[in-house]
C-alpha cells in the first residue's frame, strides 16, 4: 500500500509516547510486596514463628538451598525444625497460596466483566456464578453422595457444576440470534441468580443441622485449603489469565461502543464469548473450594483503575497482584482476629476493603472510570 498519512502530512517527530516505565515499577513492587506478605502471613497464627526463620524455611524448599535452622524458638520454648516446617508448609502455606490464587482469580475476572460490560457494578458473580455454586454446594452438603472425583468431596464438584451451569443457562437465555446483548445478559444473570438463591434459601430452611456449614460456605472462607486443591486452581487461573491478557487490546477497543469496536476490526461477539467463558472458568474454579468470597472482584479492579488508569494491558496484571495481596492480608486478619477458628474472610474483605475504596473514590471523584 503506497498511500500513508505520513506521505500526505510529512513525517513529524512524535512529542508523545506512552510511558510504561512507572507501571513496570509498580508491577515489580507489587510482586515484591506479594512475597513479603506471603512470608509475613506464614509467621502469624496460634504459634508465632519469627520472620527470619520463616524466610529461611521457605527458601530451603528451593532446590540446593538449605539454610533452615535446626530448631526455632517459639513462645519461649524450642520447636524442632520438623514441627515448624509442618506448620508453615502443610498448614499455613496452602491457605495463603489458595487465598492469593482466589484473590487473583476474582480480581482478574472482575476486571474482565467490568471491561466487557462497561459497567462499574459488574463483578465476577454478575451472571449467576455465585448463586449457582451456592446451590451446588448446598445440595452436596444435604444429600450424601459418591461422585467420581471424590478426592475433593462432593461440595467443590457440585459447586463448580452449579457455577458453570448457571452461566451457561444465562448465556443461552440471553442470546439473540448471533449476538449477545450486554443488557439482556445482565438481566438474565440477575433473574437466574435470584431464582437459584431462592432454592438455596429453601434448602437452608429445611436443612436442620447442616445449616451452619451452609452459611459458612456461602460467606466464603479458606479454612479448608489443601495443596491438592491448589494444583487444580493454579493451572486454571494461570491459563485463564493468559487468555484474558492476550485480549487486553481488544478489550481496550471494546471500551468504545460495540459498533465502533466492530468497525475497527474486532470480532466483538467472539471476543465477548471467549472472555465470558474464561472469566467464568477461573471464577468457578476459584470459588468452588472456598465459597463465593465477596467484594474482591468488584473493588480491586476499580482501585487499580483509579490508581493506574484504564488500559487493560496493565489493569489485568496489576489487578491480579493486588487481588492476591488483598485476599492474603484479609484472610490473615480473618484467622488471627478470632482464634482459633477465625471468621469467614468475606466479612473482612468487605469491612476493610469498603472504607479504603470509598477513600479512593472521594480522592478521585469526578474522574471517569472507563
Amino acid at each position: 500500500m503506497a498511500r500513508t498519512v505520513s506521505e500526505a502530512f510529512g513525517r513529524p517527530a512524535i512529542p508523545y509516547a506512552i510511558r510504561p516505565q512507572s507501571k513496570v515499577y509498580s508491577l515489580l513492587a507489587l510482586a515484591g510486596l506479594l512475597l513479603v506478605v506471603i512470608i509475613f502471613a506464614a509467621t502469624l497464627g496460634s504459634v508465632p514463628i519469627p520472620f527470619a526463620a520463616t524466610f529461611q524455611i521457605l527458601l530451603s524448599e528451593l532446590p540446593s538451598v538449605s539454610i533452615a535452622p535446626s530448631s526455632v524458638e517459639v513462645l519461649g520454648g524450642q520447636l524442632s525444625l520438623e514441627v515448624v516446617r509442618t506448620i508453615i508448609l502443610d498448614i499455613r502455606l496452602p491457605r495463603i497460596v489458595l487465598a492469593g490464587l482466589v484473590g487473583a482469580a476474582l480480581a482478574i475476572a472482575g476486571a474482565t466483566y467490568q471491561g466487557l460490560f462497561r459497567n462499574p457494578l459488574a463483578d465476577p458473580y454478575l451472571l449467576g456464578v455465585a448463586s449457582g455454586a451456592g446451590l451446588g454446594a448446598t445440595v452436596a452438603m444435604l444429600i450424601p453422595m459418591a461422585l467420581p472425583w471424590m478426592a475433593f468431596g462432593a461440595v467443590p464438584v457440585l459447586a463448580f457444576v452449579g457455577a458453570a451451569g448457571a452461566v451457561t443457562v444465562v448465556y443461552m437465555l440471553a442470546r439473540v440470534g448471533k449476538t449477545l446483548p450486554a443488557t439482556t445478559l445482565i438481566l438474565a444473570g440477575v433473574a437466574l441468580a435470584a431464582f437459584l438463591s431462592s432454592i438455596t434459601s429453601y434448602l437452608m430452611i429445611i436443612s436442620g443441622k447442616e445449616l451452619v456449614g451452609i452459611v459458612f460456605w456461602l460467606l466464603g472462607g479458606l479454612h479448608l485449603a489443601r495443596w491438592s486443591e491448589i494444583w487444580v486452581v493454579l493451572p486454571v487461573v494461570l491459563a485463564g489469565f493468559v487468555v484474558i491478557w492476550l485480549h487486553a487490546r481488544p478489550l481496550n477497543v471494546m471500551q468504545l461502543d460495540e459498533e465502533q469496536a466492530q468497525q475497527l476490526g474486532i470480532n466483538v461477539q467472539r471476543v465477548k464469548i471467549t472472555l465470558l467463558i474464561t472469566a467464568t472458568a477461573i471464577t468457578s474454579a476459584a470459588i468452588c473450594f472456598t465459597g463465593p468470597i465477596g467484594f474482591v472482584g468488584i473493588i480491586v479492579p476499580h482501585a487499580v483503575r483509579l490508581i493506574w488508569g484504564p488500559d487493560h494491558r496493565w489493569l489485568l496484571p496489576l489487578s491480579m497482584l493486588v487481588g492476591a495481596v488483598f485476599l492474603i492480608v484479609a484472610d490473615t486478619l480473618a484467622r488471627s482476629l478470632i482464634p482459633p477458628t477465625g471468621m469467614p474472610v468475606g466479612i473482612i474483605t468487605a469491612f476493610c476493603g469498603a472504607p479504603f475504596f470509598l477513600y479512593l473514590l472521594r480522592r478521585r471523584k469526578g474522574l471517569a472510570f472507563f
Partner: protein
Amino acid sequence: MSAMVELNNVSLGYDHRAILEGVNMKARPGQILGLVGPNGSGKSTLIKGMARLIDLFSGSILIDGRDITTIRRDELARLVATVPQSPALPGAFTAFEVVLMGRTPHLGLLRYEGGSDMAVAWQAMEATHTQSFAERRVSELSGGERQSLVLARALTQQPSVMLLDEPTANLDISHQVEVLNLVRSLCLEQGLTVIIALHDLNLAAQYCNRMVMLNGGRVYAEGTPADILTAPNIRNVYGAEVCVYPHPINKLPTTLITACPPEN
C-alpha cells in the same frame, strides 16, 4: 490503493423491517459522494450497511469488486473507516490512546503498537488539529473535540474508503469547513473514496462531487449537486419551501430559507 464502492439493489433495515429498498449507487475513488435526505430517510442505516455493522436483506455491496460479506472483519477495517454520528468514547482514556485504537486492524492479537503506529496516529492528530489535547482524558473534551478525535482515529486506520455520518454535526462553522477541507484533500491527494451523510445542504453542495438523495426508503435522485439541489426536489423530499440560488463565487447551488413573517 483505491477502491470503488458499489451498491447493487441493496435492501436493509432492522428486525426484518426494511428501512431502504433497492438502492443502487456507486462511489468512485477521488470523489466525495454525499448522502442527503430528511431525518429517518436511512442515511445512517446505509452507512452502517456499508461498514457491515448490519446485514443486508438482499442485494450486495462491493468494495473494489469484492463482496463485503466475504471479507474478514479486520481486513474490512483496513479498507473502510467509519466516522459514526456522536460516538460514545471511553472517558478515562487519553485522546491519543483513542486515536491509537485506529491501528487495531493493522495489529494482530499479539502485536502492540510500535513507533510507526504512534507516528501514524500522531500525524492524524496533527491533520485534525487534535494534538494540542493529545494527553487529556476524553471525559474532559467537548463534543466538537471528540468528533475531531474520531476523525483522527479513522485516518489512523489508513483506509481506502471513508464513511462519514454527519461529521460536522457538533462543530462550529470554522471547524465544519476545516473538517470537510481535510476530507476533500485526502480524497484528492490519496484517491480516497468518501461517502458522507450530511444534513446541511449548503455544505453538501460545496464539497460533494456527486449526491444521492434518499426519501421514503428509496433513492429519490442521484447526480451532481446542481442536479439534485433544486427547489422542487427539496420541496418534494423535505416538504420545505426554499429558494435555491447559485453561489455568488462558485455558482454551486445554495439553499436559502425564509422564516414566516412574525405574527403580531
